[in-house]
């Protein structure tokens, strides 16, 4: 059964109307220039807020929710008191000389972040128009040309703000840029189908073949994802399937082989890419006031990664390990 759009909307706390409005404005949490690991050539990656999955190891926790959030880095605080004055909800207090952020009172209006020059309070999630994003994107146009690069939409998952994603991709195509998307494809097919003509490359995650395990680790079944993967494989769009290798979840040969088996007949598969789990996102959990459930996981060794990629290669597909 395909995922229902109303559930998708609900999960992200928004209505169809707000999604439509997002065609004009998107909530962007980062724009990374000289992005060299997200598709061919030198790219600019646009990170859009909102995701349909809740993977416990998520490396971009600030991208999960659609709404803007305040990240709090108390180590940087110089006790200037600006936030106390600017916050309409009294979410900042000083207790025993220390800056305490009462997140439950915060509605992410961003006022404190504007006067926090020390960088203790950072608003993550900026509303931007397509043109504003394009301004950033076009700064590196010459490098897309010399490298065969372009623009990658990432997140979160760009399918959440699919209206904005579509409009942005359309603009990119209009000026002749190579476009790519990084997605879990956990959405109604029609959303993907609408984006596809604007895309030169799809990079899609498959995290597990077993639906129950998938649900336990990500909060959703993989049914829609696998269906969409199959449908994507019937298009001629170049497709990269990516697997984050998470210890204890999918880091055995048989689990990786199952994914490789699933995608090996895909005629448009460029390659299967195995991405080792890393803990670089840990500080961001803290800054968002979230629990980091993957703190006990070890980073897969190089040997482990090689072993897994060798296993997948044996099934006759091209594998890229990182």
């Amino acid at each position: 059964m395909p995922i229902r759009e109303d559930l998708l909307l609900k999960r992200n706390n928004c209505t169809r109307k707000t999604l439509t409005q997002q065609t004009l404005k998107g909530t962007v949490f980062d724009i990374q220039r000289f992005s060299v690991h997200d598709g061919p050539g030198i790219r600019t990656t646009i990170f859009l807020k909102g995701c349909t999955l809740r993977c416990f190891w998520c490396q971009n926790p600030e991208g999960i929710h659609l709404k803007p959030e305040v990240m709090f880095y108390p180590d940087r605080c110089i006790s200037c008191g600006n936030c106390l004055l600017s916050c309409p909800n009294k979410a900042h207090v000083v207790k025993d000389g220390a800056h305490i952020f009462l997140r439950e009172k915060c509605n992410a209006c961003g006022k404190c972040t504007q006067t926090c020059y020390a960088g203790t309070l950072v608003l993550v999630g900026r509303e931007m128009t397509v043109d504003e994003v394009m301004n950033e994107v076009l700064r590196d146009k010459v490098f897309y040309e010399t490298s065969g690069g372009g623009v990658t939409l990432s997140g979160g998952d760009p399918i959440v703000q699919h209206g904005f994603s579509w409009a942005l991709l359309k603009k990119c195509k209009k000026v002749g840029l190579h476009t790519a998307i990084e997605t879990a494809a956990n959405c109604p097919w029609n959303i993907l189908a609408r984006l596809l003509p604007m895309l030169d490359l799809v990079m899609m995650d498959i995290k597990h073949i077993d639906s129950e395990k998938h649900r336990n680790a990500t909060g959703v079944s993989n049914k829609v994802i696998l269906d969409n993967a199959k449908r994507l494989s019937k298009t001629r769009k170049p497709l990269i399937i990516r697997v984050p290798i998470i210890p204890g979840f999918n880091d055995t040969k048989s689990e990786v082989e199952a994914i490789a088996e699933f995608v090996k007949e895909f005629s448009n598969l460029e390659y299967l890419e195995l991405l080792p789990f890393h803990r670089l996102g840990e500080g961001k959990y803290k800054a968002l006031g979230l629990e980091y459930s993957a703190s006990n996981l070890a980073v897969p060794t190089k040997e482990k990664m090689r072993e897994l990629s060798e296993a997948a290669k044996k099934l006759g597909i091209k594998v890229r390990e990182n």
Partner: protein
Amino acid sequence: MAKEFLELTYEQRLEALCKTKMQQTREKQEVLLVMDQDDHGRILPPPELREITEYMGPSGEMVRDVKMNNFKPKSNHPSGGFFGAKACGENFNLFLKAHPVYINPMSSLAGGYMAYFMGYRNPSWPPELASNLEDEQRKYGVYPGIGATQHFCQDMTIGFRLGWGGLLRKIRRYRKLNPERSDFYDGLEQVVLGVQDWIRRHVEVAREMAKKEKNPTLRRNLEEIAEINEWLISKPPRTFREACQWTVWYQMIARMYNGSGSMGQIDVWLKPYYERESAAGTLTDEEAIFHLACLLLNDTQYYQLGGPDGEGKDTTNKVSFLVLEAVHRLKVPANIGIRVFDGLNPELLRRGVEIMFEDKTGFPKFLGDKGLVEGFVKNGYSVKLARQRVYSGCHWFAIPGREYTLNDCVKINFAKVFEVAFWDMMNDSEIKPSVDELWSRFEKQLHRAVEVTKEGLDFHMKNMHKVFPELVLDLLCYGTIEKGLDASNGGVEYYNLCIDGSGLATVADSFAAVEQRVEKEGLLTWQQLAEHLKNDFKDAENVRLMLSSVPRYGRGGTRADQWAIRIVQAFTKFVKEKPTPAGFNVIPGLFSWASMISMGQTVGATPNGRHAHAPISHGASPDPGFLRGGSAPTAMAVAVASVQCGYGNTAPLQLDMDPGLARGEEGLAKVEALIKGHFELGGTMINMNVIDKKQILEAHQDPSKYPNLIVRVTGFSAYFASLSKNLRQLVVDRILSEET
């Protein structure tokens, strides 16, 4: 058979040579404490000859050095100094006589240099010739280049054609034609005689060493060294090895006489020797690489590889690759640039990028032909000439043997000019401070700074030949010997004097900060700002951060980016509006060499949140941390391309890259694309480092832990452990800021 009697391979010899080099470097670190400059191939004189000294270095900064105590110059002046061609030549001749012989039997080339002649010039300028410009130049933080030496490039092929004997005959022939210039010819002659004598002593020592040497490879090598050098005392080089040896002699006396490290197109001048011997089967690539390695161990001279010839045809040839390979095997500091243009053999660039990421020694550099040529032509020169202007110094180019430039010697500290303008405005009770007013005063002061710099250049040009003429570079120029005139005195064809601006980001960010925080948002009054600057933001960290958090130059599309362009346009306009009063063409560029620290020391707190006396920003580079939360290379590349002055001198892009970037073919191609993109936008030079952040942090804490770590500090590369703590800190700040 005993080990000492076994034949040695080139590989074994190179390994031994590198080991010796490391020992010599460590010894230098212990004795000289810090070396905030090129590593140089210099070795210390034997302990019994050492004398510690401090003097004004070739780029105008104080240098701690060791000199040989067995040479005392003869003065010809009441001040105790020695001035003029004859006195300089005679003293240099005596200096060479006192200089020990150095032969490492592992090396195929004889010679090693131990001291700098400049260290004996005391005073270095005759007191009666003092300029009256000093006060004003100090006011603007001008490094005027008065008394600066070298920083242009000779043509080595003249030497290859004539040899020392031929040069001597040429001097004597022209002496007869210009009898009134005998003082100059005396000086030149003394230099050549001094070198010949020095070489002759090496021949004798090599023979002696050969007699005692038990190892057959080394004995043969020493015998060959003796033979080759006996020939080279007066005759021109015949073979690839002899050409390398001749180059060693020349580069050593050029370096010792006045610090010159400019060489030019090594792959062009060695090509005929290589091709002839390679075709005849008398020279293998392994042997050629070995000779090149021995040459490159002798000194860290500046060379160009590849690039167009006068007609636009690529000069890349087998020697270009062999030079890359030689440095790759050595893994020592080297200052060699690949000149990138559309017609360049793509394999040369690829090999260069590969080595950059494999060795992580900041080698090679990349040079942007398009911006260089299109810019230089705007001075009224032909494209052909612009192409012949080749890489030969830290951030600069020169036409070999035909152009005098003072490159990298003349700098205006924009931050100091800004400070003068700011206080000029604040102390004027007649007006109301505003950003417009500040800009117009900055322009006015910058204009005057450029003028007083030009006046200083004329002063230099008028007097330099009387003080300390270019006796070594003059030997291999066109016109100097013929006319009997020093290169600084009309000896060569072209005069294009350098004026560089420094501290661009400091000033651009300062303008943006006052514009936004004071004028637009009204968060501070002008008076408050002035107080904070006076007090160096004491107890006002919040204010400092408020100012420094304004979007900075480099991010793209910010007001600071626009200010940077505006500053450069004004600077370029003032430099180019007219030549110096005496009529010398001047060319603007942006560069601060490693002088960010000394330049910053003279400037109080600035509105970009920079503390008083802290370093100013580096050359044309954005300030570290300009792009919080982002990856910087393309942003930097776009920004630095946007502030090129556009007349053929450079504003280098300094890139510190993550080692993980260039994984596989694809990664290498991306780095190439970054290089080409910058040059496509008009960029002129890229100084690149590939640095492991963890390693550089550890090395900063304890430099002795990584004695082999080499970084490209700016236009030059050096052992990290040799740098002062301050300079190391700047390098570390720059690299770490790209992570956050």
